[in-house]
């Protein structure tokens, strides 16, 4: 009857050994020692709610990206048509987005449609109508396939850009991932200033250079009357005390250059007034464009527009070769540094908005760890005392496997590199209760069989055999529920689900398998009818 005892004992010891191997790297101070180099790399990660940090859910405005793309299509169509001598009036983006293009000369229809089919296969003609003076009005839209492709591209690019910016900002172990519904989830452990993080991650950083039109008088600006091809933009200036003020400024609508040519950007301090500015370098092509633009606009003002706001508009004194430019917006040091980061990392393909933001300060995280540990210890102590008093020797067995269960659960967390959250700690406390539940079930059954007059040894075997099925059945549903929780929950809840599943699986091993070894050892050393302490 006890023949396999040695093998079962060996297996248990092996499991404990493996558990220790996985658990040790999570202990403080082990990683750096020689021992730490042999041990596996994975360790228990602390969730943001314990470690402190920022959790963001960003919504990417994919529609805006599609609309922008449509605008580019419009310009491209006009340019290509002109090359083939097809006169097309300036295309217009309609809501939807659709593109309206008016062809001058009804006889050019075939040529124009051929051009569209050849060079713009991602667009399709929704409708066309003949208007007066031989004009034909086309309404174009994107094919669904292309739209899908563009959404995916936009999201991928947004993730890449955000990762780029965070890496340059210097956050250790950031977690950036795409979520369904055009969302991106960003986790930044250790950071505590959400606004600065959002300023860096969420800034579209769309940089444009535009020419200022100083000929419009202030009264017309106030009335909003500007000539065609011009627009009113806000100019941000900072006073001596750091307060910002906003004034309107009239710019030419079309940008003479954009930020796509930037190869490097740095925060620099100006020697004359100790203010911070951002200097940029352009690549060869950008340098050429910049030289031409400055040459053509000498004595005019060049506005530097970032995300629709003008930060400085210096007068061009002479043409500027060499591909360097500077934004002097009287920034603070942090602002200049952050702006340099976003310019270097590139613009986001679409505006992003913050849908969800959770920040846990390091003090609260530490408090949660402390109180979680405290609650776990007290719960474990209460149960251990109760079991020992209530079941005697059998209670001691239950307590040993209970501690083993906690060790194995933690080792499991470490082995899977799982994240421990505050609800996860609650999960461990609940598993403690469930682990003893298995033992209580078995013990109550043994007591019952003893009352029916069975010999102690037989009662133990019958108790274990009969209770096992009930334990497996009842735990299965708990595992089912935990899996559902994992599937639908967010970060902290997932931590809870993971500890629950691990704890339940481990408890089946410890309560049914390991505690029985101890019982068998205990009984095998005694005469068959000696009373057992249970």
């Amino acid at each position, binding site marked *: 009857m006890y023949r396999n005892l040695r093998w079962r004992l060996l297996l248990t010891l092996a499991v404990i050994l493996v558990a220790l191997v996985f658990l040790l790297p999570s202990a403080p101070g082990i990683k750096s020692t020689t021992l730490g180099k042999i041990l596996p790399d994975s360790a228990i990660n602390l969730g943001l709610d314990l470690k402190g940090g920022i959790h963001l859910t960003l919504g990417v405005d994919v529609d805006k990206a599609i609309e922008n793309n449509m605008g580019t299509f419009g310009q491209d169509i006009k340019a290509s048509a002109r090359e083939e001598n097809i006169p097309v009036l300036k295309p217009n983006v309609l809501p939807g987005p659709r593109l309206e293009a008016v062809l001058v000369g009804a006889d050019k229809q075939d040529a124009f449609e051929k051009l569209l089919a050849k060079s713009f296969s991602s667009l399709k003609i929704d409708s066309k109508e003949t208007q007066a003076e031989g004009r034909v009005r086309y309404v174009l839209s994107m094919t669904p396939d292309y739209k899908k492709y563009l959404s995916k591209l936009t999201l991928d690019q947004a993730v890449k850009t955000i990762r780029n910016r965070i890496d340059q900002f210097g956050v250790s172990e950031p977690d950036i991932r795409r979520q369904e519904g055009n969302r991106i989830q960003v986790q930044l452990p250790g950071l505590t200033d959400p606004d600065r993080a959002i300023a860096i991650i969420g800034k579209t950083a769309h940089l444009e250079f535009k020419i200022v039109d100083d000929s419009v008088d202030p009264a017309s600006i106030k009335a909003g009357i500007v000539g065609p091809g011009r627009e009113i933009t806000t100019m941000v200036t900072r006073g001596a005390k750091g307060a910002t003020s906003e004034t309107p400024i009239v710019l030419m609508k079309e940008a003479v250059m954009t930020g796509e040519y930037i190869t490097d950007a740095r925060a620099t301090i100006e020697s004359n007034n100790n203010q911070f500015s951002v200097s940029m370098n352009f690549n060869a092509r950008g340098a050429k464009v910049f030289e031409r633009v400055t040459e053509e606009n000498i004595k005019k003002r060049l506005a530097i527009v970032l995300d629709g706001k003008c930060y400085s508009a210096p007068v061009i004194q002479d043409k500027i070769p060499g591909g360097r430019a500077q934004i002097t917006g009287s920034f603070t040091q942090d602002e200049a540094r952050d702006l340099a980061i976003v310019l270097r990392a590139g613009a986001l393909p679409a505006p992003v908005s913050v*849908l*969800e933001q959770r*920040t846990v300060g390091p003090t609260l995280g530490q408090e949660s760890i402390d109180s979680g540990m405290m609650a776990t210890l007290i719960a474990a102590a209460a149960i251990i005392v*109760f079991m020992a*008093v209530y079941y005697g020797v059998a209670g001691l067995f239950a307590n040993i496997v209970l501690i083993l269960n906690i060790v194995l659960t933690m080792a499991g967390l470490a082995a899977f590199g799982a994240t421990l959250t505050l609800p996860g700690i*609650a999960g461990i406390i609940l598993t403690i209760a469930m682990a003893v539940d298995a033992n209580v079930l078995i013990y109550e059954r043994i007591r019952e069989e003893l009352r029916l007059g069975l010999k102690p040894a037989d009662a133990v075997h019958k108790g274990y055999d009969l209770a096992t099925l009930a334990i497996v059945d009842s735990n299965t549903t708990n595992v089912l529920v935990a899996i559902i929780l994992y599937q639908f929950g967010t970060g902290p*809840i997932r931590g809870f689900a993971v500890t629950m599943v691990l704890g339940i699986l481990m408890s089946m091993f410890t309560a049914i398998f390991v505690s029985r070894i101890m019982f068998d050892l205990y009984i095998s050393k005694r005469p068959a009818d000696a009373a057992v302490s249970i």
Partner: protein
Amino acid sequence: MSFHLIKPNTKIDFIGLRYYAFAISALMIIIGGISLVMKGGPRYGIDFAGGVILQTKFEADTKIETLKQALEGTDLPGLVVQQLGKEKDNEFLIRSSVGDNITSAAVQKTVSDAIEKSTPGAKYSYKRIEIVGPKVGEDLRGKALEALYYAILLIAIYISGRFEHRWMAAGIMAAGLFAGITALQYLNAPQVWLVLGALILTLILCFMLKLNYALGAIIALIHDVLTTVGIFSILNKEFDLTIIAALLTLIGYSLNDTIIVYDRIRETRRRDPDHHLPTIINRSVNQTLSRTVLTSGLAFLSVLSLYLFGGQVIHDFALAMLIGIIVGTYSSIYVAAPIIVSLTPESDHTPPPPPVKAAKSRGGVKPLEV
């Protein structure tokens, strides 16, 4: 020799008491329901409703009234100020229901300005800042409902298969449910109705397929969830993601108890098939009573430790679990098991003696197959 909380060989007539139990359960659910209706539905936390939470700790002694007065002048909508922990902790939760595209900077500035105005030079820090936009809140609400629904469905299938060996019927139920939900989705029904519809469909299917154990377990689960939600509403507590996690966990936990009882009913039935069903159930519940009370007590004890020492963040989760453990234990004993008697027609309470034995004793003649 050893202690006994529950005396061995109890003979409580749970089946006889079942109508009182059903009445108490109905009363609890109705009171909770009235509270829910009067308060216009459950009180959603920012996870589901969207909004802002600032957990603020002051260095100097600060009264909650002072803080409330300071913030009353601001234009923050739906402002709620709560004291956290003990009074000497000087820790407060400031909640507002501002919506889309509000930066934490704007809210922080409003609050900071108001505090600076009322108590200049006050030293404080924000230990936690949470902002949930309405869109995310709506999604999380949908996900939570979906999770509750899937939990109940999976459990129904598992119990039918495991306890009545009717995986086939369980499969039919799953298929029927899937068809029903797809139909509802085509009609573009809102999510709440979808989940409610699915639940009602599950109950009807269980009833029609005579899956009594599954039906009993599910009724007990719905009972647990409704009662806990009702008590939470009476206590004026908020529902957020962790509370949903607690509800799901207590579903699993209550079911744990229920299954232990069912398991024993199954065993007793197999052993003495001639007995009257109410007798079998009564005996099974009594036999497992000591275990049920013990493990529930231990679970209660450990969650109580979490409630008392686990800190503010996990407080409501622990509270929901505490309520759930009590309700779940009660429902396993007084609802899940007795309801099987009510669901089984009177004529089936004593199964007819198996005819096979009688036929064999007559000497190899096969009984007529009807």
